[in-house]
């Protein structure tokens, strides 16, 4: 495609309905990031029925806006209230809140907004170049490669989510099992629907996501005693970082952007991992590591840039391979399919206006978020004060309406309630819902590619790993399983030997 062609598609973003959709998405995303009780995945699932009214390009721009807007909002409460709005902002509480206590809340917020803007833009530029390249490479992918890639995704994802690898893997399996309910993707036979008509098309992905991330969270908030929160004040004249702070933030923002983007490409909870990795890196390269935890601006600038860059990076596997590796991108995939848009290698060829329209909206959305967040930050922070006794019932209603609105069947709302109860119990027992949701989305792709590979090769099991590409992916997957089993005992042995030597 010519540069001019790309530019004309990018300009689609500037059509008035797309600009409004982008603004609405960014605003909802910021609110979701600030308010507890509803993560970006559930919020995106809830607005899908709304986006169907808008059409594919505007609808998907709005969904994407919620996705990266929540990254901005999450940092606000981390800094001002010491409560991270979403997991990727946990690390920001360490130095962000410490800075706020020293009266530098404004500077921390501004640096985090500027860093997020810079990183978001860097990741979009990289996305613009890498996604078409990967999409072209993915054209060489057959069913065997897709199967190997999904297996690799499952293995890497379970290595990186939560504390326990086996628990993540178990949750992923449960998600994959749930994905087998409904029509069999090859023969069309109905499975595991127990005669329930509404389950014949499969378990509603939206119902499960809103249940696990929305309703379960309401239960969790209800179970915990409400504590009065102290919000540190921000004055407008404090909003601008001073020169020294700006100078100290430049390198962390640049490093965080690159690191975050690279981590975003990996299957896993990219934004959270990226923010932690960036914090670790900044502390190790800093000349004043002792300042970390006591209000080092680098500890805000790096992670906040990294998590935004990662959310851009995570769009690449989604757009070019059609494979989501985070709950939020999984919902985005669900939204795309409902709009009749199939992400993957053919997206760029078949629907260039959607592909470039969404990418263009990232530029616009990032600029909007910067403008929205800098002056209104105090207002957003005040929203945390909304008592949960008013907020939680509203979230429950939105979950019920969004779930019902998707297919118009009450059965889905029952599924949502069940998922909410199970999700709450699961969390109390140390199981995270994210791998389950990703498993639910990857399931049909995995099954289809598995069975197609065997059919094409006439039943030769070796065909699942014969091609060089497959071998590499299986090799990495095996290493990812074996290394954590082998390395720690070896390390312990070495340590023991070293200590036993005089």
């Amino acid at each position, binding site marked *: 495609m010519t540069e001019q062609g790309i530019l004309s598609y990018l300009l689609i973003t500037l059509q008035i309905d797309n600009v409004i959709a982008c603004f609405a998405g960014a605003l909802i995303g910021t609110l979701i990031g600030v308010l507890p009780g509803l993560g970006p995945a559930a919020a995106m699932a809830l607005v899908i029925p709304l986006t169907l009214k808008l059409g594919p390009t505007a609808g998907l721009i709005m969904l994407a806006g919620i996705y990266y807007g929540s990254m901005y909002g999450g940092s606000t409460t981390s800094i001002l209230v010491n409560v991270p709005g979403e997991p990727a902002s946990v690390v920001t509480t360490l130095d962000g809140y410490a800075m706020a206590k020293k009266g530098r809340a404004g500077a921390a917020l501004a640096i985090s907004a500027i860093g997020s803007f810079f990183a978001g833009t860097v990741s979009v530029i990289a996305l613009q170049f890498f996604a078409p390249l990967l999409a072209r490479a993915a054209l060489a992918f057959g069913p065997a490669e897709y199967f190997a890639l999904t297996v690799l995704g499952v293995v890497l994802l379970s290595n990186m989510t939560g504390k326990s690898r086996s628990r993540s893997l178990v949750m992923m399996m449960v998600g994959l099992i749930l994905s087998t309910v409904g029509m069999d993707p090859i023969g069309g036979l109905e499975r595991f629907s127990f005669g329930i008509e509404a389950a014949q098309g499969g378990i509603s992905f939206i119902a499960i996501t809103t249940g696990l991330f929305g309703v379960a969270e309401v239960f969790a908030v209800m179970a915990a*005693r409400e504590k009065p929160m102290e919000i540190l004040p921000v004055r407008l004249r404090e909003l601008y970082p001073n020169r020294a702070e700006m100078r100290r933030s430049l390198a962390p923002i640049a490093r965080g952007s690159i690191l975050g983007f690279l981590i975003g490409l990996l299957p896993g909870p990219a934004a959270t991992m990226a923010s932690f990795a960036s914090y670790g890196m900044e502390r190790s390269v800093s000349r004043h590591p002792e300042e970390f935890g006591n209000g080092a601006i680098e500890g805000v600038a790096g992670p906040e840039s990294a998590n935004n860059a990662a959310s851009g990076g995570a769009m690449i596997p989604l757009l070019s391979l059609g494979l989501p590796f985070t709950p939020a991108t999984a919902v985005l995939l669900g939204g795309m399919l409902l709009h009749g848009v199939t992400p993957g290698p053919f997206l760029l060829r078949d629907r260039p206006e959607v592909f470039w329209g969404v990418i263009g909206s990232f530029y616009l959305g990032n600029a909007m978020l910067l403008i929205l967040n800098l002056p209104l930050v105090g207002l957003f922070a005040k929203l945390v004060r909304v008592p949960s006794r008013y907020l939680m019932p509203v979230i429950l209603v939105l979950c019920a309406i969004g779930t019902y609105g998707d297919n118009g069947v009450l059965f889905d709302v029952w599924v949502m309630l069940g998922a909410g109860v199970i999700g709450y119990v699961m969390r109390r027992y140390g199981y995270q819902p994210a791998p389950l949701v990703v498993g639910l989305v990857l399931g049909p792709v995995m099954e289809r590619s598995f069975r197609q590979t065997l059919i094409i090769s006439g039943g030769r099991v070796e065909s699942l790993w014969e091609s060089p590409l497959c071998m590499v992916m299986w090799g990495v997957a095996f290493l990812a399983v074996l290394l954590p089993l082998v390395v720690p005992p070896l390390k312990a042995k070495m340590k023991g030997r070293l200590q036993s030597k005089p």
Partner: protein
Amino acid sequence: MSPRKDIASSVVLILFSVVFLIYTARYPLDSLESPGPAAFPLVLGGVLLILSLGQLIRAFLSPGTTEEGREKGSVSGAMRTFFRGKGEAKVFILAFLLVIYLFVMQWLGFFVSTFLLVILCSRLMEAKDWVRPILLSAGVCLFCYLLFVAWIKLSFPQGLLF
């Protein structure tokens, strides 16, 4: 994570995978050349069973399991632990409220039952008065009606009144 919780969750997962595998047997497996609808679920159920068995064995092998298990093993003890805070009891009540909400929706209609749900839920979460929950509920229902019914034209279950 206590080993007791590990054991309990592993047992549930083992039961789930066994039941799933039994159901899988109802569907044709066919051949390797053309795997049937049971092939993939069979692999998944098998992997889940192995993983949860592994988790169970590890939980048993981890130190301090049996004593703790015996100490807190009784049903009444578990119930007491579960309801030790007022919070957990509230979760139970809310879940029950939601079940009733879904049942009565067919007679009262979506918006009337949702209106009642928000008020009750808000009171359950220690709202002190009735006025604010009622106003909030009316506002939320009106907003949702305008957005989802008037604008997007979705249809919701209708009851006797509305």
